[in-house]
């Protein structure tokens, strides 16, 4: 199960599977700049794994504050490091801290791995130790 620490943002960026597969989502990270964007260094897609969540499960979490919004990214002309993404969507919530912990845990519990490689994960953690 993914850790709750992955679900910290009040606006959680995600991709709608009507317009993107898990593999496409992973591959898109290779076109995104790392923070800070001014350094113009691309992310390494091997450092990212992909989970999926059912919208119905998100809406059943029970805080009644989650909304899901389709938020496609379309720049013309295109911006290097911030790729266009028709599938881009947001899970939005504005919860007090006390409820944020609940939301993070329940989001983690209802998510499933789509792409996960344990040996890469273990090596990444080991490299930090």
């Amino acid at each position, binding site marked *: *199960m993914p850790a*709750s620490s992955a679900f910290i943002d009040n606006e959680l960026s995600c991709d709608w599977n009507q317009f993107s597969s898990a593999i496409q989502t992973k591959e898109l990270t290779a076109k995104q700049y*790392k923070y*800070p964007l001014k350094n113009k260094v691309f992310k390494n897609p091997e450092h990212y794994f992909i989970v999926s969540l059912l919208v119905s499960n998100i809406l059943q979490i029970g805080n009644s504050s989650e909304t899901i919004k389709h938020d496609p990214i379309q720049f013309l002309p295109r911006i290097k490091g911030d790729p266009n993404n028709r599938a881009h969507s947001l899970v939005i919530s504005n919860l007090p801290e006390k409820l*944020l*912990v609940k939301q993070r*845990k329940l989001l983690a519990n209802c998510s499933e791995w789509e792409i996960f490689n344990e040996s890469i994960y273990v090596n990444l953690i080991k490299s*930090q130790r």
Partner: protein
Amino acid sequence: MQALIAEIFNYKIIYKQVQIAEIDRYQMFFNIYQCTETKQVAIVSEDESKLTQSRKNALIKLESNALLEELSHIEKAVENAKYILRLSDNWDDDGALKIPELIFNRAVDFLYLYSKRAFDVFNFVIRAPIIQPVKDGSIDLEWDTEKAFLLINFKNSQTPTAFYYGEFTTENNQKFDFNGEIPTDTVQDTFVSWLKNLS
């Protein structure tokens, strides 16, 4: 000779006792105290009156920082999580904040405190949690078992409190949730007793 922790302070002996002769016992004690990997500790004295207050305090500190062998899995989890202290700003390539040592220690002390209380008073052993950094500079302790789960988040703030959310499912498939805010510098026995659901 007396085992000070056992007999003077009425605390449990932390590690196996060995007798040390012909040396400065207290100096040896302090050296061992600073070496957390050492699994054998000798704490011996002929007379309680020879102890200064600072030595007494040090012994108490030893008691509160060392764990019983039955809880060595907790120590191992903490050891494995120490990489968190070496993370710098932007460790997730998305602008994450460095985890302050204060917050890491707050989470670890809380874990030690509750593990020991659960074992000493409530007679059960807490499972080791997953210890994770969070991009806002806070720390998560997270447990998942078949019947229960719990997330405790230690905020990146000066206030020694944490927020938590947990659920427990009974054999009749009834779910009970458990959430709120808890001070991190004292033990709450109602919280300890709930942790039994994770054991």
